[in-house]
């Protein structure tokens, strides 16, 4: 696989799996507003995943659904941060905040890419992410002095560093005010990814080739 397809798949897998995790709050978020917010953010992250998969699919001679659902769990390229199963509010907000801070650096770099197609899609994604960032910033500010939130950020920090290429990590550290530590890199999956994959692909696997 070439470097472009590989990069597209890493980002698309992050967005798909995080979108899935965010959607786990649908129906059970602490307030109705957050139920709507998490459902909407999840929907949009999965939309970004689809657009990225479509670009990758052209190079790999397949389609977006096949990339999203027909690979084995071990072949996904997502970062461990998005795989974690955290049904607890402080960790959920810490993950959203750290992911959005990392993602803005990654998307910003793609927007400056010489690859016009990639730069154009990144610019579109960036406009939409503005609203996810506002949501994350609003919550991070509200919980800034809460010990539970601070410890969740510290716990997830090595995972957040693993979302980015090494050369962007110092900038992320400066933005969130923490030191660069040993990151939790891509390539070694969290055990709970397999469980997520089972549920996510169940319908597709039940009737191969069905059109919905």
């Amino acid at each position, binding site marked *: 696989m070439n470097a472009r397809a590989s990069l597209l798949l890493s980002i698309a897998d992050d967005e798909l799996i995080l979108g899935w995790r965010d959607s786990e709050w649908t129906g059970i978020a602490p307030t109705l507003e957050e139920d709507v917010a998490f459902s909407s953010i999840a*929907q949009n992250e999965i939309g970004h995943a689809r657009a990225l998969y479509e*670009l990758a699919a052209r190079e790999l001679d397949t389609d977006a659904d096949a990339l999203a659902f027909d690979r084995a769990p071990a072949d996904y390229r997502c970062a461990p941060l998005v795989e974690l199963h955290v049904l607890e509010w402080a960790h959920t907000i810490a993950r959203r905040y750290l992911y959005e801070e990392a993602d803005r650096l990654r998307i910003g770099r793609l927007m400056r890419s010489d690859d016009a197609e990639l730069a154009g899609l990144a610019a579109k994604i960036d406009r939409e992410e503005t609203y996810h960032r506002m949501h994350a910033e609003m919550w991070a500010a509200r919980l800034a002095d809460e010990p539970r939130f601070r410890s969740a950020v510290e716990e997830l920090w090595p995972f957040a560093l693993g979302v980015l290429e090494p050369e962007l990590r110092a900038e992320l550290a400066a933005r969130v005010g923490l030191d660069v530590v040993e990151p939790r890199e891509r390539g070694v999956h969290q055990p709970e990814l397999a469980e997520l994959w089972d549920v996510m692909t169940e319908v597709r696997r039940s009737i191969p080739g069905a059109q919905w």
Partner: protein
Amino acid sequence: MTAAEVWAALDEIPDPEIPVVSLVDLGVIRDVAVVGERVRIEFTPTFLGCPALEAMKRAMEASVAGLGAEPEVQVIQDDSWSTDRITPAGREKLRAAGFAPPAPRSAGPTTLVQLRSKAFRCPYCGSTETRLENIFGPTPCRSIRWCESCRQPFEQFKTI
């Protein structure tokens, strides 16, 4: 067949989620080219996570087929669509249906401070005494606000 006839047909297609505006009002059709029996349409999605994209594409294909031509809808995934592309007529229809139209992008990137300010006008009574209830709403493109003057919620089209 002329491109103008195709544009007129596309202007009859309602947005699947906000049917008071047409796809032409929304500004999502970037170009129409008629080549013999084929009609090529360049379509730019609003939000990438919008579940109505497929429905819009199918409606355009059916509309062109109804004119007796062969449709080819090309989805353009770059940043050429923004809410500034909603036509003045489209903005007026949104307002009349209770959706506050998006602020122009020329005002710069949207910030939380701005969304919390009183710069947004209630589509029902025209008051700017409104506050942000939720950045997110029933679809990716809408936020929820509350009007302090006429005391009712309304939907604000997000600026992107």
